[in-house]
């Protein structure tokens, strides 16, 4: 069965691409065509720009795109999370209004979940949405919002019921970012970059039809978004391999990639740049020092073992077998690797590790590692949260008794935000 399907799919897809792919089209025009054909997201429902294909067959389609060199639908950034969330929880109106423009890349999105007072604790959001007259009025402050200054639409988590318990009082909205009640400020990080934004919501409005799911269902919808965020994290690392072909569609794609990747340009440094360790050690001659060799070997051991662990998890998944505990460990080990790599780089570069200017090693990259790695153990769930998750979900150890799950949220002790 499967094999027959694979052949059919491959043949159909190839035929369509050979008939339609044209790099001289405008990027939006091409993607519009692609979305309509269902080959852009073949595992989506056929009613909504897909072909009802099983996920297992998606790689076949990707291979055909790669073979002919065709550009796919827009796949980077928060828009992917928006699409997944809308597909799962949105109304037909949402799907009609948003999905196509997501796939063409015309609209960009941002995620308004984190708040200054609730970092690891997303469900502790205190941004307030109230129905006034015939619309929702939103007041509050969001942080860590990538690309908020460019986004057309935001995925908003807000509290609509203060008498309900913490998770039950939240609702989920799609908010128009281009309105007077929404103000975006860049948030500068300790490494000097400003990849994120603070978003202030002052009497910002949302039309009732832009509520996603029901009032009070916000946490459930958020969980869908977050699940896709975790899955999507891998994608980002490999995305951005741009073609250097000269045609119009490629040119427009290059511009899109440049814009989308801009906030992430320090991400390789955040991970510790293990890839540079051996070459730097050779350049500086430190590779011949026994003490440095030990530290490099420790780092490479951790890095290789982590890589093989990820591949072990993926292999099990690909065989359709249940993933072992090894699948939940990637985030935590990446923190350990990043910290160790920063230490090893300092040891290798010595005093030069401090330098950031033109005269510095690799034009400041080594110094940027040092001031970027602290993000790894914080962003996307701190190490502490990861350990909680591993111990509770994987090892089935007892859950932490928290102070906020058994009373109305208005009575829960929380941070004052100035």
């Amino acid at each position: 069965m499967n094999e027959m399907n694979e052949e059919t799919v491959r043949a159909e897809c190839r035929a369509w691409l050979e008939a339609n792919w044209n790099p001289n089209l405008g990027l939006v025009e091409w993607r519009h065509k692609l979305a309509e054909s269902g080959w852009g997201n073949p595992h989506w429902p056929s009613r909504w720009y897909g072909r009802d294909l099983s996920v297992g067959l998606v790689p076949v389609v990707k291979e055909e795109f790669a073979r002919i060199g065709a550009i796919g639908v827009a796949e980077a950034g928060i828009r992917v999370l928006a699409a997944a969330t809308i597909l799962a929880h949105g109304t037909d109106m949402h799907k009609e209004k948003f999905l196509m423009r997501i796939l063409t890349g015309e609209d960009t999105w941002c995620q308004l979940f984190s708040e200054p007072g609730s970092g690891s604790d997303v469900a502790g959001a205190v941004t307030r949405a109230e129905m006034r007259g015939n619309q929702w009025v939103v007041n509050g402050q969001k942080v860590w919002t990538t690309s908020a200054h460019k986004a057309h639409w935001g995925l908003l988590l807000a509290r609509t019921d203060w008498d309900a318990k913490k998770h039950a009082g939240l609702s989920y909205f799609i908010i128009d970012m281009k309105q007077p009640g929404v103000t975006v400020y860049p948030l500068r990080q300790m490494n000097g970059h400003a990849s994120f934004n603070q978003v202030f919501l002052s009497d910002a409005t949302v039309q009732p039809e832009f509520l996603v799911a029901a009032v009070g269902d916000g946490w459930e919808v958020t969980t869908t978004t977050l699940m896709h965020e975790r899955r999507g994290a891998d994608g980002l690392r490999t995305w951005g391999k741009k073609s250097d072909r000269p045609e119009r569609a490629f040119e427009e794609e290059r511009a899109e990639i440049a814009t989308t990747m801009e906030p992430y340009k320090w991400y390789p440094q955040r991970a510790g740049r293990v890839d540079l360790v051996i070459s730097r050690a050779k350049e500086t001659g430190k590779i011949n020092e026994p003490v440095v060799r030990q530290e490099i070997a420790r780092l490479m051991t951790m890095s290789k073992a982590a890589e093989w662990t990820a591949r072990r998890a993926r292999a099990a998944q690909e065989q359709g077998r249940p993933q072992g505990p090894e699948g939940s460990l990637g985030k935590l080990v990446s923190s350990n690797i990043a910290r160790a790599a920063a230490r090893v780089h300092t040891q290798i570069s010595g005093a030069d590790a401090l330098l950031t200017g033109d005269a510095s090693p690799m034009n400041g990259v080594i110094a940027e590692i040092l001031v970027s790695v602290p993000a790894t153990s914080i962003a996307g769930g701190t190490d502490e949260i990861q350990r909680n998750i591993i111990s509770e979900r994987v090892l089935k150890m007892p859950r932490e008794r928290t102070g906020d799950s058994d009373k109305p949220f208005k009575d829960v002790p929380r941070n004052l935000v100035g």
Partner: protein
Amino acid sequence: MKFSFSSEQDEFRSNLRRFLADRAPIKETRRLMELDAGWEREGWKALNAELGLTAVRIPEEYGGHGFGFGEHCIVLEEMGRALVCAPYFATTVLAAGAILHAGSAERKAALLPGIAAGETIATLASAEDSGSWDAEACTLTASATGHLNGHKSFVLDGHTADLIVVLARGPSGLAFYTVDGSAAGLTRTLLKTMDPTRKLARLEFSDVEATLLGSAAGTYERVMIEAAVCLSNEMVGGAERLREDALAYSMMRMQFGKAIASFQSMKHKAADMLLDVELAKSAAYYAAAALDEGDGDIAMTASLAKACASDTYSQTATHAIQIHGGIGFTWDNDTHLWYKRAKSSDVLFGDAFHHREQMMKNWAA
């Protein structure tokens, strides 16, 4: 590279695990470890016969099952997990490895079937009092007539083996020789060590008659690479068992009116332990697969796996005792048996520092 076990391998493992839990429970380990021999011939023969464990990696032409390191390492991992007292590692990894790599077809045909059948208990004697497993450290000599003079130490099951493969400096360089366990001029002394589950011996050779097996050039390094990989797999088996037992204990042990598993520091430690053990398992499994697939970086991979397993096993054992608290420091609690095995495994074939230094040869100019 193969990154996951086949369903046949998984089934082999779970059968073996049940079998060992039944036939080699920790009570049996405690009994055998008190014997000077460290194992019993009849018991081991019977246990081995049922599953043909010693035959796993011996080629079919020499009476074995002809499996690869994938299967052999499953056996070792499960034996490390169950802490089985048996001359299995010495016989199947060390001695059989040397014979397979250095022996002629004729010698293989003479020696391997006995190993596969579980009749011959064998070992490899290479390290000496210096405690180094490097070939260059070898001082024991073989004369042109094949007589050995010198000593060996830290020889796994060296005092009980029927057949001893000896690394010696012969007339044309380093070579392997075979010696009968009861040969004249051979004095075998059980070493007193802190790990009662793994017996080591010191051997003195005074004009002992030996038979040349083959050149050790290249082949000895290969045997040591295989030993490092196999031991890594044995070690991660022990580490995982320690981790699981400590976790289970934390779930039932009450202090201050709640299970200690509900204390966050315990939970976070358990998460870190899981991470350590899973990483070490990945390295050990990868190395075993790399042996089977003839990977060119195998020397680096083997050292990486051994260094990773060393640190993880010791660290896990230390945590496991700590989690058990006072009970964990008693003789009657089983945790210390693995703790001691972790320490002896760290030292065997070179410690983590040694193997990290070896690893770097892969990258350094």
